[in-house]
């Protein structure tokens, strides 16, 4: 089945918006208002910007200086964006990097991303 990282994140952005900020707490704010490049080695990439009540997905430009970069294979992105796994699952499997200066963003995004995907959208 065809997989588009950009389209998957755009669907995530819609789902995130429907929660209207209900999932964000003070202890998980560290990944908000951060530019996160999400990419597949040798393949697609997109820029995720998460705010409390909305998420936006953009193209990655050469001028972009991201707060974090998450690089993993397509099959791992499929698992993460389905909610079956989270970003840290892939890191702990040794299949995604976890630079120290990005760990807070990655850890907290990992939790919020999965929580949002596995939640029923707010009415």
């Amino acid at each position, binding site marked *: 089945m065809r997989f588009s990282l950009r389209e998957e994140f755009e669907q995530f952005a819609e789902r995130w918006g429907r*929660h209207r900020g*209900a*999932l964000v*707490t*003070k*202890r*998980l*704010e*560290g990944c908000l208002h951060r530019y996160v490049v999400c990419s597949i080695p040798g393949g697609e990439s997109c820029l995720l910007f998460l705010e409390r009540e909305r998420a936006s997905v953009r193209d990655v430009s050469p001028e972009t200086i991201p707060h974090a970069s998450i690089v993993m294979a397509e099959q*791992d992105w499929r*698992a993460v964006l389905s*909610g*079956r*796994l*989270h970003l*840290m*699952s*892939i*890191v*702990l*499997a*040794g*299949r995604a990097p*976890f630079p120290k200066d990005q*760990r*807070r963003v990655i*850890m*907290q995004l*990992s*939790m*919020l991303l*999965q*929580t*949002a995907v*596995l*939640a*029923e959208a*707010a009415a």
Partner: protein
Amino acid sequence: MTAHSVQPGCASRVLFEDVTGAYVNFALGLRFEDIPPDVVQIAKEQLVATIGSCLGGSNMPGARTIREAVSIFGEGGTATLFGARELRPAPSAALYNSATAQVIDWDDFVIISHSGAAVIPTAFAAAETGGASGRELIAAVVIGNEINARTSRAIQKGAYVGNSMPNHQVETPLVAARLLGLDELQTRRAVAHSTFLAMESCPIGWTGDSKLLANGLPALWGIVSAALAKAGLVGYPHPVEHPAGYLSTVSEVVDSSELMRGLGSEWHTRTLNTKFHPSCAYNLPAIECALAIRERAGAPDPARIKRIVVHGPSVLLYVASRFQALEPDVYAQIADGRMTHVALCFDAAYPVIASLVYGEMSWRQYLKEAVLGASVSALRDRVEFKTDIDMHKAYYASYSYGARVEVELEDGGCFVEERRQFLGARDRPFDHAVKFRAGAEGILAPAQTEEALCALRALEKIENVRELGALLRPALVQP
């Protein structure tokens, strides 16, 4: 923060308050009489539960390995390895008892930081070595809890959660210093030595017995640091609060306003949560749900179960998926010895399945034969997780640990149980004697178990903690 003003020709003033000094003054100055009676009671019960955890944990293979290995620090000594007959030097005992307190993650936490497994092994070993009284031991436990709670709140917005929080190197030297008779300067230096090399755990190390060092090394090192300081080794006087000090080294975000808030007047010991079942706290309500379903439905036939759905907050989902992408999977790596049951202490699906299959969740369910059992294997791929937004909000708002487990059957039947807080939380307590007796079973003779329990509950009457230590060393020969 200290106000910062610059006058022409003057250097800027430092940007921190003397938190280390405040902690030293608190640790050395707190009198037993100044501790509220209910806080004293909680600390005694914390000792009951933690030592129960240690005794139960001593059944595990990793515990026996550490017991053997600490002989490298020397044999003989002044400190008790709970559940073992031999005495060892205080650092060895602190390491061993901390490891057994956490080998099946059957410990406790104050606010969000795992206190008992660092504080109590440190305090007990130092108390025996220093010949301290029961009242001094209780005071030291309270001191450890209070410091631990505050440092954890200061770094809670960083990358670390739960027992991964690297904050114990502050409280352990303070506890040790109190009981080993250090003065103010020596105690300050003890904190400096303890916190100099910041111990942050490697996340992947939580798949094996290395994880037992998460509180064990800070416990050991807190005592050694106190000894170094008492002998005169010099260390920087502001290690906790300095911008280039310990907390800033371990955490991306440090909220300094939390470090001294209510110290000596607001007692975080009162927030103690003690686990009734052995597992990461995020899993505990789901375990209770599974056990309740097992009680209603009887032993499950895996062939009849279509799927198991577990609902809960983000933290539950985090542990549910943490090690699920490993190849080979965790179970295969446990089978071939690359990993141990410790990985499953932090896996949400395993304890739910084990509770359904075995009808209990104890150290026995972490033995390899239980982990690799046929019924467990049959159900491993049928567990799903979903977010419960209300439980998610409740966790972050009020530290309420919730879960709902639904066991769906092939014939359309369904069993559902829900818990909004785990048994053993501060607002859902249980009699810690139950835990002590469960842990002591097979380790101490029944009569000795009761004698030790009585002594712990009358701890303030004990003049020398070594008397209590003797009761926690079994009269029977252990293999």
